[in-house]
């Protein structure tokens, strides 16, 4: 996977054409990546299904209209990527993401939003999403963004990086060693929040871009773990009676 250096741009940003070209030729020999889609509007769902299938080396194996349906159907398919609409009737995309991430920890989940709202994106990332895409993203950019996520190097925008630092600082009390940011990770997030690209960060810290990406991957997984721990803590503290009877 790491033969090709990862692109440092965020999804929906500029695409470096040569990278895409090499990628296109590489996985033709193997099975296409399996994609599942959760989207409530039928027309949009149909368009996305056709778009994904039209991309080389991607096939849409499952498309669901609701979060409930997704939780029933998607785990059997074991897709590589799940595209999740953030606004769903009843169970929200964020909640559905948390549940699916528990059932399929290896599967990458990408949140789809119609509007560019960093707060919502941050919530989704905390809930277990591995990246996010605007619904209006061009097909070519969609492909490179999906490949980025599959490589585990989901790019992080400077705004999200700032938000992540803040949230880790704020919740420092309930964190153990495993879910605290390392010095290097915080350094990278700091530089990201100041507007530096992955490439510039790699140059500044004298490390490879891949190392930057893997640090970011760790940050993502720490975010998921800690948000789950936090949910447990919140649940326990909100039910003092059950806690008392349990101990």
């Amino acid at each position, binding site marked *: 996977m790491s033969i090709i250096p990862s692109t440092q741009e965020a999804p929906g*940003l*500029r695409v470096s054409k040569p990278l895409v070209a090499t990628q296109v030729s590489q996985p033709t020999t193997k099975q296409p990546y399996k994609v599942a889609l959760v989207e409530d*509007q039928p*027309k*949009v769902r149909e*368009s*996305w299904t*056709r*778009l994904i299938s*039209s991309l080389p080396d991607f096939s849409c194996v499952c498309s669901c209209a609701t979060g409930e349906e997704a939780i029933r159907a998607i785990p059997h398919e074991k897709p590589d990527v799940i595209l999740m609409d953030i606004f769903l009737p009843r169970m929200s995309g964020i909640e559905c993401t948390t549940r699916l991430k528990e059932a399929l920890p290896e599967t990458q989940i990408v949140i789809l939003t*119609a*509007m*560019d*709202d*960093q*707060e919502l994106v941050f919530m989704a990332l905390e809930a277990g999403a591995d990246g996010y895409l605007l*619904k*209006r993203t*061009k*097909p070519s950019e969609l492909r490179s963004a999906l490949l980025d996520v599959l490589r585990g190097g989901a790019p992080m*925008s*400077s*705004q999200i990086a*700032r*938000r992540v630092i*803040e949230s880790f600082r704020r919740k420092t009390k309930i964190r153990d060693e495993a879910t605290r940011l390392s010095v290097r990770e915080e350094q990278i997030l700091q530089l990201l*929040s*100041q*507007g*530096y690209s992955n490439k*510039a960060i790699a140059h500044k810290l004298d490390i490879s871009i891949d190392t930057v990406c893997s640090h970011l991957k760790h940050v993502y997984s720490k975010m998921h773990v800690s948000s789950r721990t936090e949910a447990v803590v919140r649940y326990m503290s909100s039910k003092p009676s059950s806690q008392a009877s349990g101990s």
Partner: protein
Amino acid sequence: MVAVYAWQLASVRAQETQTNELLDMEIAAAAQGPGPDSTNGLGSWIWDAHTFDRQSCLLWRSFEVPTTTTVTHAQIRMTADNEYFLSLDGRELGRGVEWHELFDYNVTYLLSPGKHVIAVSAYNASDSAGMIFGLQIDLADGQTMEIKSDQNWRIVPSSEEGWKTKTKAPDTWPTATIVAPLGGSPWWTRPSRVNTMETLLPVKLRLWQTGWFQISSLSLCAATIFLSLRLIGKLAIHRRERWLLQRERARIARDIHDDLGSRMTQLVLHGEVAQSELASDCSTRLQIERICQEAREVLCTMDEILWELNPKRDTFRDFASYVCGYAQGFLKSTQIQCLFDVAPETSSIVLELPFRRALLMAVKETLNNAVKHSEATELILRIAHPGQKLVVTVCDNGKGFDRTRLKPGRNGLSNIVQRLEEVGGVCEVTSHPGQGCRTELSVSLDHRLRWNTWGWVLDKSQHSDQANKANPLEANYS
């Protein structure tokens, strides 16, 4: 012999005692003033119809000084067996516990023309009981009024309240009973002594005891309470209006998002699907590509409007996040590298829609200038909030310019200044040729708050004007 001496001595002693008594009477007569007799003006001994031990008897009498004249001299002379408390018009004048003696009160300065009430609360310890009283009033027209203890006095039931100031006696109050005339048994014919009490002067009222002062302070209090209530009411209305406005803004944002947003997104997707199913050399494909691009730009604009409308996105963090995102997107296709320096969020300042909008517009204009004119390679966007201010600073490392040689009106600067002035902000540009350019945009949030508070007091329509100003529809479409 001894017996004769003893008799003589006894008779001398008797004579001495007699002389002493005479002397006392002379003193008493002298103290009494012009009248020849110390018992002058006194009435009879009066009391309740029944007399018993440890009895309290409340005696009441009212009289009127003619309004046509003034009092030149007035004196009360009285005593009671065994004790009394005397009050005039509710004011305590004095007390006496010795029935052998008389007590004189000079009340000249207390008797203004009009009605007055004498109240005597007497107490009998044992055996006989009585109260004797005399008030002599000399008037300016030469006449003399006399109020004596007689059957015109009333006995007040012990349960009565406020009887000391009552100017009219109800019929249920029985009249006083004369138990003995002046000099009658068992009391004296001549008092052993006459005590002249200090001349009584009207009570001097302090400033805060005067009626007009109390009335004016009361009305001041009432006015303050009224104003406070009014202010509270206005605050409540204002809050309600703000709440309604926020709800309406949220609704508009939701409508745009759910309806326009999703349909535009569908449009883009349809376009993309259509495009992917056409041959790459087809001219229609290029047309569709253009339509998709246009629709994407519309969606971008809608994103911005939604961000401005969304009442949940009015924190410092949201503002910083949005401005940074915008700058990054805007400068992406240029040679300028954009760096950020954003203050950590420490306070929960609220940025209302007009502020967000004005600042965002000013930042856009500044970035536009930098791209067009600066030839910079690096740009630092700094967002801070010192105190109750929000300061956005944009620094570039471009070629800079000489402000004095700028043609007025030919650049976006005046536009920025005007946008900020609308919300009470300031724009400060410092630049020198070859040294880049620094633009500081600052808005004071505190100032606006104060202005609003006084605005409510001064003008009742102010708050609704404010609300109108913040109306998203007007802000967006006017």
